[in-house]
């Protein structure tokens, strides 16, 4: 009986010391991690919509009605106090998991400024190439009028996106996500907006 108390007490002390050490390291790391996440977000905003003074998350305003579940966030990029661009955070189902994408649109020109794959778990060497610049650049400056479609050969029309070789599912997933953002953009900010 006495042994059980001694042993439990020993483990309690070990766990207590570990807990104290961990909470100290956690208190050191948490602000740094939060800062990192914030900085990452600002950097991705800059990458997807470069010409803005500030970006505000206005999901509460634009996503309050029923919307495509792929849309996660609507951020408005302001230039000189006027809304100039829209940055959508979308999530879409890829070949092996969720792909989250940031897609930027210019309101004046009704075009895609750039897209960026924020996180993905696609196959290394194949679908994971979706995060490479060369693929993301295929969406650059696309007009928003027509739905984007994936082709396996070099694109001949403006709304065609060439798939990553041997990764059609991933390419289609990314395109589907961008299309979801594009539709919301057209309906809300495009030429035929309902205001």
């Amino acid at each position, binding site marked *: 009986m006495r*042994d059980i108390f*001694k*042993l439990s007490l*020993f*483990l309690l002390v*070990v*766990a207590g010391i*570990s807990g104290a*050490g*961990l909470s100290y*390291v*956690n208190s*050191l*790391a*948490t602000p*740094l*991690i939060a800062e*990192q996440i914030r900085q*990452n977000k600002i950097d991705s905003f800059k990458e997807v919509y470069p010409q803005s003074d500030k970006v505000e998350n206005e999901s509460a305003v634009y996503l309050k009605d029923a919307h495509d579940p792929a849309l996660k966030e609507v951020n408005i990029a302001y230039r000189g106090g006027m809304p100039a661009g829209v940055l959508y955070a979308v999530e879409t189902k890829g070949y092996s998991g969720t792909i989250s994408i940031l897609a930027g649109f210019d309101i004046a020109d009704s075009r895609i400024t750039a897209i960026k794959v924020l*996180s993905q778990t696609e*196959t*290394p*060497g*194949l679908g994971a190439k979706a995060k490479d610049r060369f693929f993301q650049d295929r969406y650059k400056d696309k007009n928003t009028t027509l739905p984007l479609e994936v082709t396996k050969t070099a694109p001949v029309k403006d709304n065609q996106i060439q798939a990553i070789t*041997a990764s059609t599912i991933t390419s289609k997933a990314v395109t589907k996500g961008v299309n979801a953002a594009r539709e919301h953009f057209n309906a809300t900010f495009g030429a035929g907006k309902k205001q």
Partner: protein
Amino acid sequence: MSLANEFTKGIIRENPLFRLLLGMCPALAVTTSVDNGLGMGVAFSVVLLASNIVISAMRSIIPNSVRIPAYIVIVATFVTMIDLLMHAFTPALYTALGIFIPLIVVNCIILGRAEAFSGKNPVIPSIMDALGMGVGFTLALVLVSAFREVLGAGTFFGQTILPENIPAIMMILPPGGFITLGCLLAILNKIQKKTA
């Protein structure tokens, strides 16, 4: 056994990956690029060093019947600290290694060293043991990942070194991991036999 011996045994004679065949899971999963292999090896070595020091310093006060839970608490503490620090200071590596950082907790090499060595030996030899095993495991991961990255992606440390049509994507997919590891083990066994 001399201190130098404690250090060198982990690199060749008792290399955790190639000779003891421990730590297979991270060795197959994260070795898709040399960056990842090296990062995993270093994170692993830091945890092993810290846990070996603490466990060997406490070896006389840890009651024998609860030594395994005590070891696991100590190892888990260090892993969580490394996890937080990597997230804070090396976010790119943290994202690349993902789930395999928390999984160092149940890495059999660390628990194996605690059972086989640091639970029975003084601090200084335990440090040498941890350094040797750490270097050995890191070298092994780097070797496996070098083969896989060069043959599978045609790059080395992210620098392209092979023309685009040579690399076989299979090498950075799971089968490539098994094939690389199997071939390396066969070659090392052959060398070992000759010298023995």
